[in-house]
């Protein structure tokens, strides 16, 4: 008999990044006994890497900003594939969520009149990102972490036990969700430190596990980003949408190799940095797509004037949405105008005085100096696209963050729909606050409203134990997990990367099937106590199944849109805008199936926020004929 530690909770939140912590706070505030499961130590989540800020239309810097403008920008950025209701809730609620952080102790940078300062960012019409230098993600994590500690202090006052109502299980990984009779009954996993198994019996689970970047060779994501939540949800009977849309951040470091993939924040461009190829040419002016033509400067002179006078000038094309910039860099490199390491130059040194750079971009300066011995106040950076964010994720109800499985909720990067085919910078920190809160609130309500709790059966548990132990049982003679992981990263990076082709995607599916077969024989030596080889072996299963979703959906979608670019279908196709690709797995197998589902139709008063000529770029003639007819109909919600 394997020993299993058992805990009982009302709400279990899997993931301790921004979305998870915000959800846990809300569940605890609603009076539910809440557990937070963190794959790393408390406070180390990948959210700390977010640099730019949290987008919220507070209108502190430009009072013309409001939720409708933010909503419009978000839909435009996502190329109208977004779940409109999520984009709407997000735009409306983000300011409250940011203000709330100040009451938890966050200290944002200030405007002259003492309000939260807001900065410009790609795709946002007005200065909108609440920020703290370029370490906003760290501020957010630390603030939420400290809020949880303060709740624990309240509980200690009341009960003498810090952990009585909200407890953090650090360095704990969930390998299976337990579903009994179609509803969530708990979660099973292991504690890294001891290797011991642990079962959480809980009727409501919030997935907030972040993204999938570790399947890629060049990525800004940490080791935790192995698509755990995506895979757990699918195996529990949930569905994923939009998995073909991955954001490649345009400016990751490409040299030196030790820091390949690490992001150079967009604020470098927002504050005056420009992109140049090896011929010294500022090439972005050649890559402004028609839909954006009117909003961007046509000459370097106008672009340069914008930094000091934003009212009378249009912004420089370095601030186009991320996918456009990533594609442009990719084209320059392919045309032979890139550096040896496969990047282009991002130069801020010739544009701003050294002390201004150090003041405005402190961690960037620090990071380059210490990690790469590059002084950004003296020399240009060498940058290229790096896998950064997955727009796709668990299909959820916009208002409640509930998935297709009763008792299973999702928020943050692991959920899908909010960002459509492409996410605007700054929208992820606000996304995780808005939907983290909603997920926590609705999970708490669900758990509180149950007449009877589901129980975990022995057979389900035995299977979970067996699956988790299998790599150790096979031992050193099995397939090496590090080798398999390396090969998976090559396949995804080379064949399902930023520019995609039919033949390569087909090849990727063959290769993934082979890897999946080999992964069934993965084995590791050593024991259960803090054994990274074992941990990777278990994560591999998740990476493989999620990668398959991405490859299948990318092959299916015969158009280019946002974070999905097909060389053989270079244009956006309005009929594809109406389609979400939905992935699921057959119960008890790891076989991915793909189906089509219509994208929800925007309410008329939301459609009315857009200029008809803009809608014409995205919608079919048929769709364009209907909104006018119905716009006089139902009022707003």
């Amino acid at each position, binding site marked *: 008999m394997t020993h299993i530690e058992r805990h009982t909770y009302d709400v279990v939140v899997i993931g301790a990044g921004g979305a998870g912590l915000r959800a846990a706070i809300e569940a605890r505030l609603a009076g539910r006994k809440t557990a937070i499961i963190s794959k790393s*130590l408390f406070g180390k989540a990948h959210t700390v890497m977010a640099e730019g800020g949290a987008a919220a239309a507070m209108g502190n810097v430009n009072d013309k900003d409001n939720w409708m403008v933010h909503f419009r920008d978000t839909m435009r950025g996502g190329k109208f594939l977004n779940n409109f209701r999520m984009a709407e809730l997000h735009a409306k609620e983000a300011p409250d969520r940011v203000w709330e952080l100040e009451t938890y102790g966050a200290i944002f940078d*200030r405007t002259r009149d003492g309000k939260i300062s807001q900065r410009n960012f790609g795709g946002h019409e007005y200065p909108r990102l609440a920020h703290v230098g370029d370490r906003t993600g760290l501020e957010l994590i630390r603030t939420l972490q400290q809020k949880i*500690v303060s709740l624990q202090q309240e509980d200690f006052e009341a009960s003498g036990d810090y952990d009585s109502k909200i407890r953090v299980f650090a360095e704990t990984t969930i390998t299976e969700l337990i579903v009994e009779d179609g509803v969530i009954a708990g979660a099973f996993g292991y504690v890294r*430190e001891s290797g011991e198994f642990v079962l959480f019996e809980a009727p409501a689970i919030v997935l907030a596990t972040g993204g999938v970047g570790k399947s890629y060779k060049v990525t800004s994501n940490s080791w935790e980003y192995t698509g755990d939540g995506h895979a757990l949800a699918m195996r529990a009977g949930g569905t994923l949408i939009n998995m073909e849309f991955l954001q490649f951040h345009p400016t990751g470091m490409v040299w030196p190799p030790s*820091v390949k993939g690490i992001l150079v924040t967009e604020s470098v461009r927002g504050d005056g940095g420009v992109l140049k190829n090896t011929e010294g040419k500022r090439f972005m002016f050649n890559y402004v797509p028609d839909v954006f033509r009117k909003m961007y400067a046509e000459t370097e002179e106008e672009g340069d004037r914008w930094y000091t006078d934003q009212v009378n000038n249009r912004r420089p094309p370095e601030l186009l949405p991320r996918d456009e910039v990533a594609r442009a860099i990719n084209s320059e490199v392919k045309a032979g105008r890139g550096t040896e390491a496969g990047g282009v130059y991002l130069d801020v040194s010739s544009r701003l005085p050294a002390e201004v750079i150090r003041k405005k971009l402190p961690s960037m300066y620090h990071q380059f100096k210490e990690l790469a011995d590059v002084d950004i106040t003296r020399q240009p950076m060498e940058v290229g696209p790096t896998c950064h964010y997955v727009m796709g994720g668990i299909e959820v109800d916009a208002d409640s963050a509930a998935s297709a499985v009763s008792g299973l909720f999702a928020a943050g990067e692991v959920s899908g729909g909010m960002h459509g085919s492409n996410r605007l910078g700054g929208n992820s920190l606000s996304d995780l606050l808005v939907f983290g809160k909603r997920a926590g609130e609705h999970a708490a309500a669900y758990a509180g409203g149950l007449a009877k709790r589901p129980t975990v059966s022995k057979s389900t548990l035995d299977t979970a134990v067996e699956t988790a132990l299998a790599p150790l049982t096979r031992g050193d003679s099995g397939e090496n997990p590090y080798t398999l992981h390396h090969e998976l990263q090559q396949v995804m990076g080379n064949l399902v990367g930023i520019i995609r082709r039919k033949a390569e995607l087909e090849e990727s599916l063959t290769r993934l099937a082979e890897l999946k077969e080999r992964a069934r024989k993965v084995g590791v*030596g050593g024991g259960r106590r803090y054994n990274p080889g074992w941990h990777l072996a278990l994560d591999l299963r998740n990476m493989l199944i999620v990668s398959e979703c991405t490859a299948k959906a990318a092959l299916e979608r015969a158009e280019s849109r946002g974070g999905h670019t097909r060389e053989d279908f270079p244009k956006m196709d309005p009929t594809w805008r109406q389609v979400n690709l939905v992935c699921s797995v057959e119960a008890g197998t790891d076989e991915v199936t793909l189906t089509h589902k219509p994208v929800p139709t925007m309410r008329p008063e939301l459609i009315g926020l857009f200029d008809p000529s803009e809608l014409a770029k995205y919608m079919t003639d048929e769709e364009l004929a209907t909104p006018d007819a119905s716009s006089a109909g139902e009022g707003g919600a």
Partner: protein
Amino acid sequence: MDGNVAAASAAGKRHFRVWRSSGDTGAGDLVDYQVEVNEGEVVLDVIHRLQATQAPDLAVRWNCKAGKCGSCSMEINGRPRLGCMTRMSTFDDTETVTVTPLRTFPVIRDLVTDVSYNYTKARELPAFAPPPNVPPGEYRMQQVDVERSQEFRKCIECFLCQNVCHVIRDHEENKVAFSGPRFFIRAAELDMHPLDSRDDRKEMAQAEQGIGYCNITKCCTEVCPEHIKITDNAIIPMKERVVDRRYDPITWLGNKIFRRDQVDVVHRYLAPDREAMAAEANGGGGQAAAVGPDGRLPVTELTLDRSGAASPFGDDLEFPLPVQGITYQHPTTDGEQPAH
């Protein structure tokens, strides 16, 4: 893997010595490895290559690999560092690189230590106390007023400052009463927060966090990867204000009227029990005095040829130690005996 073929070029191979646990007791030994190193790599890259090619179960913590999360704290050639921010180019080609776990915390396995001490201390420090009657959205603060707190909020919680602090490094017994530099800056951050509504942060730093144990050797400031001026900007102001409040108005008046060497005499006369108070101020018998009996820093501070106090390891000892000289034994905490 093609590592063996590449091995032919001897220049790419380097000698590493890594602490490996031999069981679940915290015992272990330094193990030698010859491992490939490429241009532009950092120590953490090399540890990862060891995992992938020679030691799949080598335990190490890491997350962002960009100096932002503070997970990969370790001791490299005896010097506490982040593995992701220690470039291999800073070593000679022939230099042996010795990697050991943080010394101040119990080893879980290999390079991973039990840092729960820090999370315990975090809980003991009262959280931000929001101002009553200021609704969300109505917080107004000037940039110049928040910058002092913002410096401390840069902390990535790598716990290197806790690890080098000699109040608890090799002094397990002090951990109960001492929170360490990471939480002194947290206290200072809240103390300097324009809207925090508690006004007893300094008193708490002394009474409950044991700030009196600190004798300002600045080891924490030196090791901070975020370059937070822990000692100058947080600890000293917190200590001085504690002292000011405790001894006001006598200290203030005495300093105004008398020369420094006369102040003591006056104080002895006016406040015969002040030495007892000073001892209490220093955390009730901690191992290092914070302030002299005059309520000020010791005079040696002024005569020394460097900022901060003398090194607790002696002035003639330079860091990093020569690699040959490092025979690592992790300190034991629960009465366990190491294997050798």
